[in-house]
């Protein structure tokens, strides 16, 4: 928890600093459109009690996904969110809690203080998976290969078989839970037939596996395909079980 909050606080400071730089450099040219003197006197200091709302979207996430916190206050002079610290009077913030969390906001003014809170539920998978992966971390190869398994093809075919559909679904949910992971799919063929044709066929196989993942909700931009045709072999014996090993789309972390 505390580590996460430190990260978000740092992010906030960076954003604030960037906003300051932007105001100091790029924006002042545009200020000529509004004469500050024409805006009239500043509003009278608020004396009424503040009001505040805090929402989170979505309210429930899978481990590793993000939530957007959105808060609106009126009549407040300072607003703090527990674990994040002092924030703007109105604002949004993206957070990635690792466990279910109550986000608690306090708005203060001369007229008093008010509170708002929202609970974000984090669904942690029950099945054993990789250790908690945070954004920017691709995780281990072992966890990846356990959840994203190679798919195999019939001879001279690049259609996903029924058994591939199951593993594609599993792979897609793993990738949804690990948004930092990028995937490279290698297309492979057995060593019968001709090298040039097999390279084109391997491309079709890798693309079929990619299409399966995209259809299951994985962004196409996270996936790269390379055909190896029959230039690289998993198994070099001349029998059907070996050929089957070679007719595959292999998933790897694209580091």
């Amino acid at each position, binding site marked *: 928890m505390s580590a996460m909050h430190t990260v978000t606080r740092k992010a906030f400071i960076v954003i604030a600093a960037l906003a300051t730089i932007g105001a100091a450099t790029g924006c002042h040219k545009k200020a000529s459109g509004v004469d500050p003197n024409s805006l009239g006197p500043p509003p009278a200091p608020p004396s009424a009690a503040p009001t505040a709302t805090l929402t989170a979207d979505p309210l429930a996430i899978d481990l590793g996904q993000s939530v957007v916190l959105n808060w609106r206050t009126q009549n407040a002079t300072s607003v703090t969110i527990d674990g994040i610290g002092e924030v703007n009077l109105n604002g949004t913030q993206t957070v990635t809690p690792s466990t279910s969390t109550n986000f608690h906001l306090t708005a203060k003014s001369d007229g008093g203080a008010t509170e708002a809170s929202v609970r974000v539920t984090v669904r942690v998978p029950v099945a054993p998976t990789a250790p908690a992966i945070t954004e920017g971390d691709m995780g281990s190869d072992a966890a990846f290969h356990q959840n994203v398994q190679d798919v195999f093809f019939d*001879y*001279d*075919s*690049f259609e996903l078989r029924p058994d591939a559909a199951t593993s594609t679904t599993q792979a897609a949910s793993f990738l949804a839970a690990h948004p930092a992971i990028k995937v490279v799919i290698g297309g492979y063929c057995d*060593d019968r*037939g*001709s*090298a*040039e*044709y097999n*390279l*084109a*066929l*391997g*491309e*079709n196989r890798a*693309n079929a596996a990619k299409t399966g993942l995209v259809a299951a909700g994985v962004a196409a931009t996270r996936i*790269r*395909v*390379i*055909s*190896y045709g*029959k*230039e690289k072999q998993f198994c070099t014996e*001349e029998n*059907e079980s070996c050929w089957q090993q070679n007719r595959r789309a292999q998933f790897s972390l694209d580091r």
Partner: protein
Amino acid sequence: MLSPKRTSPTLYRLVALLFLLSCAASLRAQDWFKTETSSGISSIRIAAADFKPLSADPQTIGFKKTFDATLFNDLSNAGIFDIVSKSLLPQSTPGAPPEINLPQWSAAPTSASMVAFGGINVQGGKLVCNGYLFDAKNLQYPQVLAKQYSEDASDDAARQIAHRFADEIIFRLSGGSQGIAETKVYYVKIGGGGKEIWAMDYDGANQHAITHLGTVSLSPRISPDNSRLAFSSLDKSGFQIRMFSLVLNRMVNFPAAGGTNLSPAWDPNGKEIAYSSSRSGDPEIWISSPDGAAPRRVTSFSGPDVSPVFNPRTGAQIAWISGRTNLPQLYIMDTDGSAVQRMTDGGYATSPSWSPNGQFLAFAWDRKYGPGAPGGQDIYVMEVATKRWIQLTHDGGRCDFPSWSPDGRHIVYANTADGSAAHMKVWTMLADGTQKRPLTSDGADMPNWSWK
């Protein structure tokens, strides 16, 4: 049907294969056919005399031996001669026209119609060779050809001079057919976990590496003017088209496109290349200029489209391999993608090569492909206009990547007797399937014969 071709023996020699296919007209789709000599036309009987060394130093003797062996091989490889066995030659070695006694050569057992002879010498670091071709039956004006060659003395120069002299003889006696003795074969050399592009003379001599990229490089295709070599090479983003300049002796730029890019092919005027590219998602045939500019897509069918080759006669058609109906089949189309025609009626067809006269397609075909099927992958030749075909290899293991010689009378191809990729060798044969012989040892694949 045969008579128009019988009236023109010159034409016969030029396109012996056409004649043979015509012979086989009533035997459509048979897998055996007659050789040239059994068709009733006799080849010219030629004797290649050992050349006379004009000095006795060991260097000259060495070059002379190389020259003699190369000339003899070139003439016997040409496929249009009945070459006299060395053991039947007269004892004499004439070095110049006054020294030859022609009746000695025309009489049995030599029985030569033509005699190639001459002298060879090393003078001031130059290898000087005088070569003559005499008509043994024409005692009054026997000289058909007289040539003098001078090159910096080396074993390779002796071989190249023999190639050039052989090509002159072939050109003169075949009725104008360009010889192939000076042509090259580019191929893939397997070794050290990678594949590099290599080159050799047409007879397998002078094998040497072209690329040193340390990756997997495939499908070398030499430009029609012998200046550039296009091929496909594996890098971090997959297979890309690469270009090597044989003039600059280094790689030259070819822009990377998305996806897998394979199997380049030159159009006959060297202005465009066609290749398979999956930059739009599915492997399709694309055409661009040789520097990669102005790419345009020619095919648009789901499934692999690969291995294009231009009709070298017209440049207006492309033959290629498509998996649009599952197993790969041979197709032809116009270069704008129209007039698509399927050529093979089944099986597993790959690796087309279009004959220089535009009339035939050589390709690899496994006619009974499938799990457990007894079929083998062999080299076939199909007449484009009629789709009649003949089988050129039989029961010799897996064959692939046929490539025509510029004179259209030879085909170089890859063969592995036991099916394993490591045992692949480059072989050559006459275009009727005779005179098969290996050019390389194990670990050579994907040969491509130069255009000249």
